[in-house]
């Protein structure tokens, strides 16, 4: 069952990589602001015509 060691090492490697990513992201201030990022996503509207939310069950063209 030595292969289980390989898998554990690989899994730990992946986990450590992401742990590093987590530490980096906290230190570099990625999560200092947990409010505006969620709203900023909505800011870039890159389409001309709005999605026809208001028209109910009708052909929109």
């Amino acid at each position: 069952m030595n292969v289980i060691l390989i898998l554990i090492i690989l899994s730990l490697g992946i986990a450590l990589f992401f742990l590093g990513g987590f530490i980096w992201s906290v230190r570099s201030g990625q999560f200092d602001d947990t409010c505006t990022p969620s709203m900023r996503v909505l800011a870039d509207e890159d389409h001309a015509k709005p999605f026809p939310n208001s028209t109910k069950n009708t052909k929109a063209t």
Partner: protein
Amino acid sequence: MSLAASQNISAVASSPARSVQAETFKYDNAIVRAFAIATVVWGLVGMTAGLLCAVQLFFPGANLDFQFITFGRLRPLHTNAVIFAFVGNGMFMGIYYSLQRLCKARMFSDFVSWFHFWGWQAIIVSAALTLPLGLTTSKEYAELEWPIKIAITVVWVAFTINLIGTILRRREKHMYVAIWFYIATALTVAVLHLTNSMVIPAGWFKSYSMYAGVQDALVQWWYGHNAVAFFLTTPYLGMMYYFLPKAANRPVFSYRLSIIHFWALIFVYIWAGPHHLLYTALPDWAQSLGMVFSLMLIAPSWGGMLNGLLTLRGAWDKVRQDPMLKFMVVAITAYGMATLEGPTLAIKSVNSLSHYTDWTIAHVHTGALGWNGFLTFSVLYWIFPRLYNTRLYSIKLANYHFWIALLGMMFYVVPMYVAGVTEGLMWKQFTADGFLQYPNFLETVVQIVPMYKLRAIGGTLYIAGVWLMVYNLYRTAKSGVFVKETEAQAVPFRREHAPVERGPHWIHRWLEAKPLTFTVLSVLAILIGGMVEIIPMYLVKENVPTISSVKPYTPLELLGRDIYIREGCVGCHSQMVRPFRSETERYGEYSKAGEFVYDHPFLWGSKRTGPDLHREGGKYPDAWHYNHLENPRSTSPGSIMPNYPWLLSQKLDTTSLPARIQALRKIGVPYPDGFENGPAQKDLQEQSEKIVANLKTGSITANDNREIIAVIAYLQRLGTDIKAAPPVATPPATVQPTAELDSHGQDARATTTAAK
């Protein structure tokens, strides 16, 4: 949220860099459209293949006795097509669309984008060609043979470079949570794919897994489980966190929760793989570890699901009006259902009932049809009008699609639950006298055939819905003008940001300029090299049999096993008798790890549409197998197994034998030196003649060089080694596999082997 408010937010966000001039750039929409079209096309192909599989399960003649579309070969085509072609392209569509906008940057390189696109489509086409031909490794969701595996690696690296490159060149300092999900996808899938693809080639389209038996099983399900986690789940969660707020036009319920969702999921998911191997020969502590981590997964999964659903708080009126949101809500609900059910199935006592049954099929289709399917449809309905700068052609049609798809899903999943529980209970049912109530496996099959019919209706409905979507999207595209690129402006968040030079050495310069990326790529390269070097050496010494009577397959059995792999028998027949009384009564002695040391790859299977075959050897005469393979209903009335007439007519290809023996020897199977140059062929001939003689006693005249002879040899060998008595104490330095097989039992062979 009003447009004015949105602009305020961008102004606030970019205020620290006010002094820097805003840059104008263009989002690449062409690549998004390409992936979107590929998603729809391959989705239809994959689902149709699935429907054909479903029909064959109650009407085996639906393959028209045509080997290339028989269930065993079609099933991997279906799973690969829906996972890697439909969801794969869907994921790339979502990532290429959202990543550019989240990073406020065009994709890193147009060339890499198109290389990625065409490379991925070429891989899918090669899969669609090779799998029906029976070119398969038989390892679930990793069936493609080694040249295609290498191509996958190359294309995946291209995708990763494109992803990381775009992130490094982003103009938005904060990495939105979706980006983290994308990074996790790219990196983890690479490691999983490489680890599970360690094979030794034996010709251009044949290879053997470097791992054997229980080790191969563990690697495979470490891969298999995490493929579900990091291919089907994380990229789609990233898409959920982008497209749901966009469609609802309100921020995600709790951004903080989404961050916790990501990090918790990443750290827990990777350890849950062993839950696919409960009650097998895997060490008990590993099984318990897998079970505990599986249960822990409920927390982050449900956190994410609730975060998604609560995003719609106060916006449920939009769900009523917007089909895109309807699809999204069902997708998130299905995610919640599947991630509650998954951990439940990972509990050992539940698993003892559910494993190998259609319950698993129901579970994966809740995820595939509900989570991945509905979310993909949702994103497609959202993206198409935007790509074409128009409105969706018909909301009414999209609503029809929604209800038809939902109905289709119910017609699929509910019968499969009923079938799964029915099978599980019938297999385990004892009479008051302590005998199996349904000793004939066929009784349990016949019982659930009506459920298989209902399932096919569900699948048909689901596909009909997709066709409605195709028409709707086509008309949408027709009504608008494709926007190849979208212009955008943003202020870079750092001064040193400079466009990458496009000289002949731009890759090198880029790497030098990015020590982090360079390090990551170097580590990856070293990892690959190291694994190729170390794993075979490391594992070979472990392949010393723990049960001394277990011997390598004879040449004829080896070729028979390769045909068994080619025909995808493992799709319906497990080779793992679990240590339950109901199973040892039905099949015989439970399976032991030491019995599989020469199994490259392992063939334990994950589904029992037919009975387990691990103790098949010696149960029936050769003639029974011959008749059964020619027409299963001649020996087992009501069987849903396909006919295999081509095994009777096709000549056994023995030219590949030396390459196969050499390959297996390299990974530790103790065939003596020079065995493949003469002795193996002689041995094969003798064993064939023996089987032909046996068939004659069953009044069957067969040619000794047909494929069916090899298959019979393999089936008669299965699980018989441990019956050899007394076991020899000395390690088998040399092995001369012989053809002592007889049709009625393994005693003759076993005695001979033991004597050696």
